[in-house]
């Protein structure tokens, strides 16, 4: 495969990954809005409300992407077209660092220390763990 087609393939896979990330986030928001309407309660009240308002979709995509990239690194030959499209493309587009960093920065600005710290630790611990698990299962 020529370099140009490979680069376009990586970009297209990245677009699919980014769309999946945003679609999951939108679906989660819509689900919470629907539930809030049904129960007649505002979305983020009390302990359970705070738990539901925690950024779960971002954690899910980042941990899933770290696992898949780890598996691809272990199982597929490095630099092959498929490993680049799935790894650099799909996993890279699915996962994101900028949204994560801005989310924690926003929480710090609003002095929500607990939110910033739990988001930081959950991503680091589960993300590195998922990557290590993916590498191990991929035979690395």
């Amino acid at each position, binding site marked *: 495969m020529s370099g140009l087609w490979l*680069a*376009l393939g*990586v*970009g*297209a*896979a*990245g*677009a*699919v*990954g*980014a*769309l999946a*990330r*945003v679609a999951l*986030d939108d679906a989660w928001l819509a689900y919470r809005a629907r539930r809030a309407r049904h129960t007649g309660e505002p979305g983020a009240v009390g302990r359970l409300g705070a738990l539901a308002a925690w950024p779960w979709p971002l954690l899910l995509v*980042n941990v899933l*992407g*770290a696992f*898949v*990239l*780890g598996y691809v*690194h272990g199982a597929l030959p490095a630099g092959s077209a498929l490993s*680049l499209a799935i*790894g*650099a*493309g799909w*996993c*890279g*587009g*699915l*996962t*994101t*660092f*900028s*949204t*994560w*960093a*801005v989310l*924690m*920065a*926003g929480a*710090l*600005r609003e002095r929500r220390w607990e939110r*910033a710290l739990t988001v*930081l630790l959950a*991503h*680091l611990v589960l*993300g*590195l*763990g*998922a*990557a*290590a698990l*993916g*590498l191990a299962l991929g035979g*690395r």
Partner: protein
Amino acid sequence: MAAGGFAGALTRYLLTGSLPSAGAELATAAINVGGALTLGVLTGLWAHGRGPGSRTAWLRAGLGPGALGGFTTFSAIAVALADPFRPGVALAQTLLGVAAALLGLWLGRLAPARDEARP
């Protein structure tokens, strides 16, 4: 959104794809911190009803979660820092990203608010 994700992922691949692994790791760190700074600036601007796409939701989605979300990546640093296991480097890189995002938010909010954007 899709165009933003395509452009972001393609640019990251072109910047890092040809580098050896140590160089790619450093370039990815720079991409992530730079992307966090840029998204911070945009978010700060948007909070004041300023900046590109401040009145156009699809442009905001395309630039923010699309282009910058696709440009920066979490999976690459998670895998690079899981083998060999270097949690300290991961933490340091993340804190640098958060500091960059804080700086960006502050810079973005320096812009005077648009009248109609005030609550």
